[in-house]
């Protein structure tokens, strides 16, 4: 009984939903504040993202006449639950509970938000949303393969040091820091760019382009449903960098020192994301595809070869 309650507490409050949400809101504020400072503006107050979401929850929900209602309403829920699942898996793995969260599960769950976006915008039957959905789909196609390859590199890197049957376990992978090698570094950089695309940030905000016109995937959404999308994005700001931290940077431990270190790693990844967002112009969808498939793909193939060689000859830094 007590065990069940603790688990519930873990999942819902700390470090589950509520905690993730709090971190996400702060992260979202950081994104806007830093962007404003770059443009010589003051930027919003710290409670701004929370206020935005709260306000949207209190507003009316309009569903377009021609929309497929069930899918239209279900899509943001699917997206949100996808991210929640991901963050829970991550937290449990990080806190080294007895949980056999495996990296494949995480990778599959990570696709859910993008799929939900495509579903939702296709269901809203607006030409703008249709364009957005088409772009999102192409974007997913372009970054999903490099991301997978990046994880393959990690699996190769860590497999030598792990016991049989543990190679795919997130808990086990979190014990290692594959970024401290050439192949790991390459994989990390590519994965970071993929995360940028997953978050829908410049230079890969092709599907949304919120800064100019919200004629993107969410154009027909309003009220609480829009709030769900915003929440999903907020939670992704926590989950995705955290995933990178877990897989590449050795995770967050349980001792005080390693928690502090872990927070530092998370902030580092987040700041990297924000900086990339603010110093780059938007690319076109075909440029993004070429970038991910050709450049990132080549780099990762090299990384896979390096990692295999390193494993075979026992050279850690390759």
């Amino acid at each position, binding site marked *: 009984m007590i065990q069940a309650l603790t688990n519930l507490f873990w999942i819902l409050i700390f470090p589950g939903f509520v905690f993730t949400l709090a971190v996400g809101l702060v992260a979202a504020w950081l994104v806007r504040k830093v962007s404003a400072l770059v*443009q010589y503006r003051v930027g919003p107050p710290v409670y701004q993202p929370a206020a935005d979401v709260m306000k949207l929850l209190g507003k009316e929900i309009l569903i377009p006449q021609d929309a497929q209602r069930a899918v239209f309403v279900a899509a943001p829920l699917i997206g949100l639950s996808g991210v929640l699942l991901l963050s829970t898996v991550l937290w449990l793995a990080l806190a080294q509970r007895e949980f056999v969260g495996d990296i494949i599960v995480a990778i599959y769950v990570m696709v859910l938000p993008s799929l939900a976006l495509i579903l939702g915008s296709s269901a809203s039957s607006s030409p703008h949303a249709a364009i957005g959905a088409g772009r999102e789909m192409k974007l997913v196609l372009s970054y999903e393969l490099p991301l997978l390859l990046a994880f393959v590199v990690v699996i190769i890197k860590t497999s030598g040091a792990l016991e049989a049957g543990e190679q795919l376990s997130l808990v086990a992978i979190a014990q290692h820091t594959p970024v401290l090698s050439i192949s790991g570094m390459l994989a990390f950089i590519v994965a970071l760019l993929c995360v940028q695309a997953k978050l829908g940030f410049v230079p890969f905000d*092709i599907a949304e382009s919120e800064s*100019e016109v919200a*004629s993107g995937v969410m154009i027909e959404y309003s009220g609480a449903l829009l709030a769900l999308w915003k929440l999903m994005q907020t939670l992704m700001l926590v989950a995705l960098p955290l995933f990178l931290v877990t897989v590449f940077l050795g995770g967050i431990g349980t001792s005080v020192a390693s928690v502090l270190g872990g927070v530092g790693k998370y902030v580092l990844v987040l700041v990297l994301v924000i900086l990339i967002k603010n110093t780059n112009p*938007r690319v076109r969808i075909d440029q993004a595809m070429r970038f991910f498939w050709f450049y990132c793909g080549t780099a990762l193939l090299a990384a896979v070869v390096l990692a295999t060689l390193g494993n075979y000859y026992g050279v850690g830094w390759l």
Partner: protein
Amino acid sequence: MTEAVRKPVLAVGPFHPLQEEMEFFQLTVDGEIVTDIDVRISYNHRGIEKLSEGLQFDQVPFLVSRICGICSASHPLAYVQAVEEIAGVEPPERALYVRTIINELERIHSHLLWVGLAGHFIGYDTVFMWAWKYREPVLDLLEEITGNRNNYGNVKVGGCREDIPDELVPKMLKELDAIEKKTEMLTKAVLDDPVIHARLKGVGVLKKEDGIKFAVTGPTARGSGIAIDVRRDDPYAAYSDLDWQVISQPEGDVFAKAVVRLLETIEAAKMTRQALKKLPKGPVAVEVKEIPPGEGCGHAEAPRGETFHYVRSDGGNRPVRHKVRAPSFVNVPSFKASCIGESIADVTITLAAVDPCYSCTERMAVVDGRRNVIHDYASLLQMSRAKTTRLRKEIGAPEMKLEDI
């Protein structure tokens, strides 16, 4: 298909954070190439010509200054000149100088505004923020003279309503120096930038013959080598006393229009300074008792081109006919000549280059009959920006940073 496209574009798409006037463009494209353009105006038709017939001669300037917020000094001036022509009134010399100064300040603020928006259209948001920042002091000066940041309402038949206080002149001279310096810097940054060259040169060419056929005016004409300028051709206010040049460029592309506007801004700052230094003493208005029957044409060079007003009087206290021709009315249709055959990534900036009362490029729908693709304004803007990025890579230009400007 058309219905399905039009509805969402009109109801949802047309509005944009950088809001502009309502006009609706429908572009027909074949692949990447624009083959036809259809324009629907009327969203902004307020019936000013009819309203004017119901107002007294001295009330009309307030109406016509609200034709366009950015040309709110040139429209009343053109009207007042038409009425002065009927009445045979000659305003005092100081009034002519005050009119000149306000019109040139208006030109500076309008051109800087355009430069900012053009920057925004090709993906240089930094240019946008900075140009608008430089523009603020001009608005402050105008507020100090006329009491309003826009809509000055300063001219009347027979002179001006408010004078420029002598104490303000040193401050204005100082501000003008600063503006001129900043604009020169901006001009240099824009003219030396290889990306802007690659992005704007040879784009949206309006040939000289086409320009004459479509009767274009202002920077649109001067960018196509048609060196016309009402300030020189039919001098009004104090322009014949000042030392200045008509800027024109022969190429006819978007780049030429940008160059014309930037150089004109510097020229306008110089003219304002000269006029301030020469400012004669005396009253700023003479009394005008009544307007005799007759007809008069007044025209003035607004930032976008010639504003033309035709007024007819029957001896009463109201005009019986008042025709207004804003420069955009003839400049806008000219993209029938300059846009057709261009790629859609370049259409936004080509339309914006005309500066149609600060860009009507909002209301656009692109209909591709062959591929069934609908592009809205956002995707056009994106295409335009993506092209900038691509060109930047091709010439190996460094990433733009805020400090570079």
